[in-house]
């Protein structure tokens, strides 16, 4: 068949167009080189790959970033009201002028490019390492490509319980631009950090975040991906959890022509907890894919996946969620729910839950549902005077709330709920 050759040709072509940056430390160049090799060996992803069956990666691989109109609104950007360390990117390039000073108690923050020019041993143990580890189970060529090429992003080492969130604010100025972001985060034992991400970053985004969480540490992540309609995004978060550590991540996606958000979680120590959640809202030309892979490699860990998708006018939602439980991971508690709410008959929700379990004493449950708005509930609400449109809104917001409730910080959760309510009101029938 013609497909395989084409995958490798395309990978080679892309690598030529996106060379590794020069002037980096030896270890960094080596990591780049290894990643490029991985990408070349795996080939560019293709629709016929099992892992891309429901989402066509072609537009992520096209030689030019697409033109994507920027939404201009006067509303305050998400999370702007919360106390935070603001780090602003414009079209995927850090803008120090508009950002806060890189100083935060309990935390060392450095631009990635700077970190890769020096001999920082902690970053060396993570950059491209967590991404590479994950490639054994499933090929993630776009993440390898990101490691090979991305220069923007931050290296953050957390040593204490950081009081305010680090906030990445992704603005756009250009109608058509590619952005490659790569963040590397290390939480030392007992440390705690919240990272916020807000905005679309570019008309086409590739983003990787590698998070290494030592024993007893906690990492919280809340993200909104902006409201631009035509943008494309591929994101992957790789997390490794030590004993009794916590990882929590929530993403809100409203609009966007194509989004693939991957979560790759590895339990390396016992009694750790990982919750990944997402809510997405799509109207029309919208394709949204959440792909999750959770490896239980240690006993007594808890994982929880909560994904909700509201779809209308031909929007497509995809969920691929896998829990792999190794034989050592006794007493694993794994929960997964993925639900699609279709507001009309043109929309689609495709879901593929996978369980692979080698331990005998585990508690794993998963549920996937897909349906329309509950007519009984709708009648109850309208019979009390709530107009049908508003009643539907209430039910839509109720539907996604199980995912939003995964956000621990009440202030951030309230902000996400406002965003959701705004979208729903703007897209009322």
């Amino acid at each position, binding site marked *: 068949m013609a497909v395989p050759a084409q995958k490798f040709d395309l990978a080679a072509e892309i690598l030529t167009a996106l060379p590794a940056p020069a002037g980096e430390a030896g270890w960094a160049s080596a990591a780049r080189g290894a990643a490029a090799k991985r990408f070349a060996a795996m080939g560019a992803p293709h629709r016929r790959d099992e892992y891309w069956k429901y989402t066509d990666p072609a537009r992520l691989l096209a030689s030019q970033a697409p033109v994507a109109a920027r939404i201009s609104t006067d509303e305050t950007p998400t999370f702007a009201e919360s106390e935070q360390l603001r780090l602003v990117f414009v079209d995927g390039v850090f803008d120090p002028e508009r950002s806060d000073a890189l100083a935060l108690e309990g935390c060392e923050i450095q631009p990635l490019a700077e970190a890769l020019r020096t001999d920082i041993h902690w970053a060396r143990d993570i950059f491209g390492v967590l991404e590479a580890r994950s490639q054994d189970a499933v090929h993630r060529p776009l993440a390898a490509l990101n490691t090979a090429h991305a220069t923007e992003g931050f290296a953050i080492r957390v040593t204490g319980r950081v009081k305010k969130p680090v906030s990445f604010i992704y603005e756009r100025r250009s109608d058509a631009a590619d952005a490659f972001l790569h963040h590397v985060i290390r939480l030392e034992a007992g440390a705690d950090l919240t990272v916020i991400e807000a905005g679309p970053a570019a008309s086409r985004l590739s983003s990787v975040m590698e998070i290494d969480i030592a024993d007893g540490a906690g990492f919280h992540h809340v993200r909104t991906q902006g409201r631009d309609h035509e943008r494309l995004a591929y994101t992957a978060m790789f997390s490794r959890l030590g004993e009794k550590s916590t990882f929590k991540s929530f993403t809100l996606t409203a609009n966007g022509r194509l989004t693939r958000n991957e979560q790759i979680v590895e339990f390396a120590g016992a009694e750790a907890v990982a919750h990944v959640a997402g809510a997405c809202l799509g109207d029309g030309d919208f394709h949204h894919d959440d792909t999750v892979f959770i490896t239980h490699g240690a006993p007594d860990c808890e994982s929880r996946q909560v994904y909700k998708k509201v779809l209308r006018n031909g929007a497509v939602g995809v969920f691929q969620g896998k829990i792999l439980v190794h034989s050592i991971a006794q007493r694993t508690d794994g929960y997964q729910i993925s639900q699609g709410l279709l507001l009309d008959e043109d929309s689609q929700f495709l879901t593929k839950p996978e369980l692979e379990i080698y331990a005998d004493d585990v508690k794993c449950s998963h549920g996937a549902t897909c349906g329309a708005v*509950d*007519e*009984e*509930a709708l*009648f*109850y*609400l*309208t*019979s*009390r*005077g*709530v*107009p*049908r449109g*508003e*009643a539907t809104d*209430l*039910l839509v*917001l*109720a*539907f996604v*709330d*199980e995912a939003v409730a995964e956000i621990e910080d009440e202030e951030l959760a309230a902000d996400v709920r406002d965003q959701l309510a705004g979208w729903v009101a703007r897209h009322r029938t």
Partner: protein
Amino acid sequence: MLKIENLHVQLEEEDKTILKGVDLEVKRGQVHAIMGPNGSGKSTLSYVLAGREGYEVTQGTATLDGADLLGIEPEERAALGLFLAFQYPVEIPGVGNMTFLRTALNAQRKARGEEEINAADFLRVVREKAKSLDIDAEMLKRPINVGFSGGEKKRNEILQMAVLEPKMCILDETDSGLDVDAMKLVADGVNALRAKDRAFLVITHYQRLLDHIRPDVVHIMADGRIVQTGGPELALEVERNGYADILKAVA
């Protein structure tokens, strides 16, 4: 106030006629009761009046103060002042009781061209009415009817009615599933709302409720029709002898 004439209703999904010519008029200030055997069409009548989907009106009319009810949306009927307390109140996870009730009240006010109620006034009104119905304020923070006992759901229906102040109240078996004290609270709640420009249609199987809410008129429904109409004594007769004699007499 509520006028139903020769109402025929069948199911949309299957060829089954449920209401076969209902005639009923409830005047301003009155309380009417409807009794009748299981499956005779009492709930169907209430649903058709409130605008639930799935029914087809093949003949007849229903008006509220002269305005046609059957051709308009459920929310428009509510704004005209119609209220149905459900036989089986629906649980709606994720939608808070208070949010819902305030949205409903303000939507009705808006539809009638009245000013919206502010959050503080709303809270005060609800607290006060909840207290008189012995509803815990904490309960109202929960999603609609979720985790409520059967009796709590029914009391919540009456609370909503008290807050929305409709002019035509239909109560479908609000008494079933209530303990003796709760029944008294619900009846007191209804009686407190009795007014000369408000009317009630109370569907019930039991005389007990009618001891507390004295009806002006009692109807017996059987097989999709009102087969007998009388005063409060009709309910007593049903309580004593069941429906057999009444149905025999009209057959």
